[in-house]
């Protein structure tokens, strides 16, 4: 019983063993928050679709250090983003800028939705028209349909 309890407690403590690795600037949590916020806007170029905030790749760690260094020097968030764009290109920004070459990227999904709704609307209207144009059944045909549905009359072929 005791050993089980001890095991559980140790299990719960396990994350702490790792926590130490991530400690960078515990002395200044405000700065660290700004570093991480800004890092979430910067793409890790050696990873696939990750920000440098999410990545522990060496380059990502270096870039985070640069961000931290520059924030410490009093540079603004925008200045640092500009610096990164100048070195690594706009691709380094995790969300692409909204400009004429990226309009399709930003608004393409919306465009597809509009087109899809349009197509749906047209198809529904055509269908309604077809229903209206369908010839009315005679009483005889109605009776046959009813018996077919109730399964009394078998079809000529199966």
């Amino acid at each position, binding site marked *: 019983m005791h050993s089980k309890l001890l095991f559980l407690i140790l299990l719960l403590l396990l994350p702490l063993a790792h926590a130490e690795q991530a400690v960078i600037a515990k002395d200044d949590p405000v700065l660290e928050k700004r570093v991480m916020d800004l890092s979430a806007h910067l793409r890790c*170029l*050696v990873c*696939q679709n990750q920000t440098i905030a999410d990545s522990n790749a*060496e*380059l990502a760690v*270096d*870039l985070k250090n*640069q961000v931290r260094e520059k924030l410490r020097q009093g540079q603004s968030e925008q200045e640092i983003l500009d610096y990164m*764009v*100048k*070195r*690594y*290109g*706009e*691709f380094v920004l995790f969300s692409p800028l909204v400009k004429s070459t990226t309009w399709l990227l930003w608004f393409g999904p919306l465009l597809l939705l509009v087109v899809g709704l349009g197509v749906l609307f047209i198809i529904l209207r055509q269908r309604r028209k077809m229903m209206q144009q369908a010839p009315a059944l005679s009483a005889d045909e109605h009776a046959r349909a009813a018996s077919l549905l109730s399964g009394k009359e078998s079809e000529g072929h199966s």
Partner: protein
Amino acid sequence: MNRFLLPLGVFIVLVIFLWIGLTLNPREVPSPLINKIAPTFRLPQLHNADKTIGPEDLRGKVWVLNVWASWCVTCRQEHPLLVELGRQNLVPIYGLNYKDNRDDGLALLKTSGDPYVLSAYDREGNVGIDWGVYGVPETFVIDKSGLIRHKFIGALTPELIQNKLIPLVKELNGA
């Protein structure tokens, strides 16, 4: 029949786009520094920590900056090509020893040959970031006015050197 043409057309366009996408290399990010002034730096030399080197020292000549490190396997593959290129005396090759241990870097040059006129020693990798380096090796060609004219990402190959690097250097030298 006709009703299948539109979906088929959309499908074919989609396939073409995806096909093109497959041939692109997502790791190759074009550098915005092309045709811009090379970022300045002043770093200690690898062989002699008391002396420094910077791009200003090389104004007026066409030169090549190769970013390398002893821990980088691809650099070691590329290394004999650089030694060979250095031997041809077509263009001075300078090294940027990136995030390396000084002794390891020197040891590599001793055993595999030293193609570099000089190597700058970038222990922290800050100059690398300034130059937009995101992986080693990378190779820059800088012209007489100090503009970066080309960047090779990844290892050079004999084809790249023959078909791209050497013609570019000759063109920049006005030969």
